[in-house]
């Protein structure tokens, strides 16, 4: 439902914007159309006005003609009378001259040149040369007048033969064969007064029926005009009728567009007015146009601004709406409760209740539907807390928010839900909003956290208890030997015992002291193992077989003394591994000691080492110590790793030991990422096995531990005097001059050859450029510039030469941290000598590693 709304909203916003754009477009269109209409109107009006003006001019011309005609007619009848009364040609001439004068005064201008044909002879007011031989009979004015008796006839414009001026002739027949004619000079013809009232730039042309110019108001001469393309086009277009429309125009001699308006007179003469189109449309138009354009621009800008503001505010309100929707989405149901009317309106709700609740209803109905969603006790509390009265009183107290968590039944199970009523001053005074939020995750998590805390607390308590128990056990176990020491010492001091008794006492004191010492050491070990966050292991490459053999050797005398058999089988493929030999020995010592302790005479114990799985770099090694002694009960096995636990049944009364051995063993095994397993049967014996993942040491690496771990003998080449080292060539890599000198001095003193390199790169280069196997050992400082010791060692090991894997590399460094030793081993170094160098140690390590020249 929500999605559709947003779609509608977006559409509305789009509509509004598009509407504005459409309005702008329509406005522009209307404006343009308006301007077009106005233009049309102007042109049409001008057309009408100019046409009628042309007609009125034509009418004026016509009236002029009428005047000529009446003068002509009167003159003709006068001549007829005079001719009938046989007046002399001179009289007639004189009459014609007076007609001239009359016409001048009535029509204006010395306009006419009258002459008549009487009895075949020309009588002219102003005779011309050759008038006697003038062939009048071929002239149009004569022939037309003769063929149209009683009518005034007009010729077209022509050039007078004598004067060369433009004339027209009007003529009328007097009687059969006699014709009176007036030549009218066109230059005086058409000065109609009203032409002066033509608009500026407009012009008036009068064409005769042959489209010759009778008169023109243009400043150009008639000849110029007649010969112009403009007039030619004007004539032809008028004839063709293409200049009839109000929008028709023509281009004049100056290229200006002119509107053409004309009226054809009954005698086919055409009265033409032309007005420049520019003057029709834009005279006084520029300012109006600017004003119009300005107003248009303003309105357009207003529309654009309005659209943009609208868009922005829509975007803003959409943004706010989205924010509110997201806020609303945190609630899966929202209702408005009217406290006064006791009704609700659902703004948003789950489908499982919407069927029952609809969009609105009474609050009682709401509560009753709630009953179906929660358990009884929750419902009662809900009904009381969210009753109309309670909500009203809360609102009255200005409590803005009120709510709580409860378990609601959903289709897919029960979930924790938070209900909240919100009262806001902005709402109507008696309305609150009730909203529901799913808080299942948070609630369950806080329950979990609470349980975790409870567990942690109880664990802490039990740890304290265990610690207290441990302390009381420790103090008990320490008191026994201490009491013996103190007591026997007192005894020895007080009495005057004999030597034998004294010796006995001393022996017991010594034994108790050692027992106490063992206990203290074990306790310290335990606390170190348990308490230390750092590993207490010091791994190094060792020969596992030899290390374990060393452990077993220590017990051989003890075993032999009790007639017990002690065997060792080593079935691992790889002998050389990286481990902490001290700690492995400690574990095995504990186990072997127990095996021998908890078995009687003639029993046997076996130590076995197997390599269960082996990879390229590491393997799983299983160590098993088996005995056929007294064994343990299954109940005890459960507590075997608890400090001070001892099998109580069937145990010999005096079993020595601290009770911490197995806990220490387990801790150590765990520190080595191993696992331990105990199997036993009372009376039959026990088998303890532990498995450790151990890294394999590279073949050819001598074990570094043999000089250090107790119990393993040095091989024969180990001498303190260093005799066997004479002649060896040693490469020293050391960046500090003093240290280098000291080392060289010590080696020279032993008759060794020394090569000096001041950094790892130099050392590498010197090694690579030396003859194979010529260098007997490399003393490598760890911290050097350019290339440090580890990188140099790695490079040498990977150089691929025949001696690259066998040449002994000894790390010489002030670093004695276990990780540095381990790092040195990892990069292929065979041994480690700490600075400051002890000559003795140097000799022993070199002796051990450089077997070549000693054997």
């Amino acid at each position: 439902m929500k999605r559709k709304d947003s779609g509608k909203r977006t559409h509305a916003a789009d509509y509004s914007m598009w509407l504005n754009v459409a309005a702008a477009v329509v406005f522009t269109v209307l404006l343009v159309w308006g301007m077009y209409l106005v233009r049309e109107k102007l042109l049409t009006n001008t057309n009408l006005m100019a046409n009628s003006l042309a007609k009125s001019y034509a009418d004026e011309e016509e009236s002029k003609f009428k005047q000529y005609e009446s003068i002509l007619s009167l003159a003709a009848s006068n001549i007829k009378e005079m001719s009938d009364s046989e007046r002399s040609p001179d009289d007639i001439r004189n009459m014609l001259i007076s007609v001239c004068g009359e016409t001048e005064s009535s029509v204006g201008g010395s306009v006419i040149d009258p002459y008549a044909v009487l009895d075949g002879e020309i009588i002219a007011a102003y005779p011309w040369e050759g008038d006697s031989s003038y062939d009048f009979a071929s002239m149009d004015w004569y022939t037309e007048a003769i063929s149209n008796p009683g009518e005034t006839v007009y010729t077209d414009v022509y050039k007078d033969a004598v004067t060369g001026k433009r004339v027209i002739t009007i003529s009328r027949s007097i009687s059969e064969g006699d014709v009176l004619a007036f030549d009218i000079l066109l230059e005086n013809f058409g000065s109609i007064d009203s032409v002066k009232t033509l608009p500026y730039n407009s012009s008036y042309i009068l064409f005769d029926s042959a489209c010759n110019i009778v008169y023109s108001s243009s400043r150009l001469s008639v000849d110029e005009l007649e010969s112009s393309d403009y007039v030619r086009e004007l004539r032809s277009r008028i004839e063709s009728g293409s200049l009839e429309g109000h929008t028709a125009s023509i281009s004049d001699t100056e290229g200006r567009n002119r509107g053409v308006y004309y009226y054809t007179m009954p005698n086919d003469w055409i009265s033409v007015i032309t007005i420049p189109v520019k003057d029709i449309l834009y005279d006084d138009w520029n300012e109006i146009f600017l004003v119009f354009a300005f107003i248009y621009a303003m309105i357009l800008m207003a529309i654009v601004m309005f659209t943009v503001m609208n868009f922005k505010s829509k975007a803003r309100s959409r943004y706010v709406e989205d924010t509110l929707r997201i806020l609303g989405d945190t609630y899966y149901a929202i209702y408005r409760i009217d406290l006064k009317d006791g009704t609700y309106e659902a703004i948003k709700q789950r489908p499982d209740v919407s069927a029952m609740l609809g969009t609105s209803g009474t609050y009682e109905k709401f509560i009753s539907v709630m009953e179906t969603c929660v358990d009884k006790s929750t419902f009662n509390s809900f009904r009381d807390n969210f009753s109309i009265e309670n909500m009203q009183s809360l609102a009255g107290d200005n409590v803005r928010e009120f709510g709580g968590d409860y378990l609601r039944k959903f289709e897919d199970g029960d979930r924790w839900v938070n209900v909240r009523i919100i009262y806001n001053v902005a709402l109507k005074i008696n309305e609150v909003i009730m909203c529901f939020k799913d808080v299942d995750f948070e609630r369950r998590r806080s329950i979990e956290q609470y349980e975790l805390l409870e567990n942690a607390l109880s664990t802490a308590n039990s740890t304290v208890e265990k610690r207290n128990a441990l302390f009381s056990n420790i103090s008990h176990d320490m008191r026994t030997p201490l009491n013996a020491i103190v007591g026997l010492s007192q005894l020895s001091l007080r009495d005057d015992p004999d030597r034998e008794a004294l010796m006995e006492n001393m022996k017991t004191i010594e034994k108790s002291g050692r027992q106490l010492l063992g206990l203290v050491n074990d306790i310290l070990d335990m606390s170190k193992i348990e308490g230390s966050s750092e590993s207490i292991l010091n791994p190094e490459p060792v020969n596992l077989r030899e290390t374990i053999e060393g452990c077993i050797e220590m017990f051989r005398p003890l075993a032999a003394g009790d007639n017990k058999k002690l065997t060792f089988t080593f079935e691992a493929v790889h002998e050389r591994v990286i481990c902490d030999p001290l700690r492995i020995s400690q574990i095995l010592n504990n186990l072997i000691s127990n095996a021998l302790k908890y078995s009687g005479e003639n029993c046997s114990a076996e130590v076995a080492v197997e390599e269960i799985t082996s990879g390229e770099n590491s393997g799983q090694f299983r160590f098993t110590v088996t005995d056929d002694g007294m064994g343990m009960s299954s109940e005890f096995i459960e507590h075997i790793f608890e400090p001070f636990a001892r099998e109580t049944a069937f145990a010999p009364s005096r079993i020595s030991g601290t009770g911490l051995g197995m806990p220490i063993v387990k801790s150590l095994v765990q520190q080595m990422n191993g696992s331990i397993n105990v199997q036993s049967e009372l009376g039959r014996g026990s088998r303890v096995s532990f498995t450790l993942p151990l890294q394999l040491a590279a073949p050819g690496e001598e074990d570094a531990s043999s000089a250090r771990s107790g119990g393993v003998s040095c091989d024969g080449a180990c001498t303190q005097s260093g005799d066997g080292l004479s002649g060896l060539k040693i490469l020293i890599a050391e960046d500090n001059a003093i240290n280098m000198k000291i080392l060289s001095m010590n080696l020279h003193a032993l008759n060794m050859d020394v090569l000096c390199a001041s950094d790892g790169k130099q050392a590498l280069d010197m090694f690579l450029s030396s003859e194979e196997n010529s260098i007997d050992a490399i003393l490598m400082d760890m911290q050097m510039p350019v290339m440090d010791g580890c990188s140099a060692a790695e490079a040498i090991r990977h150089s691929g030469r025949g001696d690259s894997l066998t040449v002994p590399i000894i790390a010489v460094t002030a670093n004695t941290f276990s990780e540095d030793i381990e790092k040195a081993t990892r990069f292929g170094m065979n041994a480690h000598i700490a600075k400051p160098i002890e000559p003795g140690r140097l000799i022993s390590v070199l002796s051990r590693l450089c077997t070549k020249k000693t054997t």
Partner: protein
Amino acid sequence: MDLKRLSSECGIDIESALERFMGNEEIYISFLNELMYEDKTFDEMNLAASCYSYDELFRTAHTLKGSAANMGLQQLSGCCDRIVTALREKNYSVIPDAMDDCREIYAKIKHVVDEENRNA
């Protein structure tokens, strides 16, 4: 040079140091002089400390630790070890004090060596 004075005033373990020099006091004294007058490690260490170049400080402190130990200068070596350890543990706040101690010890040794050389 009065090695006993060195031993008592500067806490130098002359006996074990002489082991490295085959018991030869003269060789030991010449090495000591070289360390005090020609070796530049202490100056480099000082400079690295003042510039807070911890990498360089580590290298120089480590080197000086070794050479000082070789010469039996335990106090100086121990001081350098403190610096090396602090840098490893990124415990930079203790370095200024450790450096001060280093300088003090070095200055004392230098003073005694200078005087002994003048008297010789």
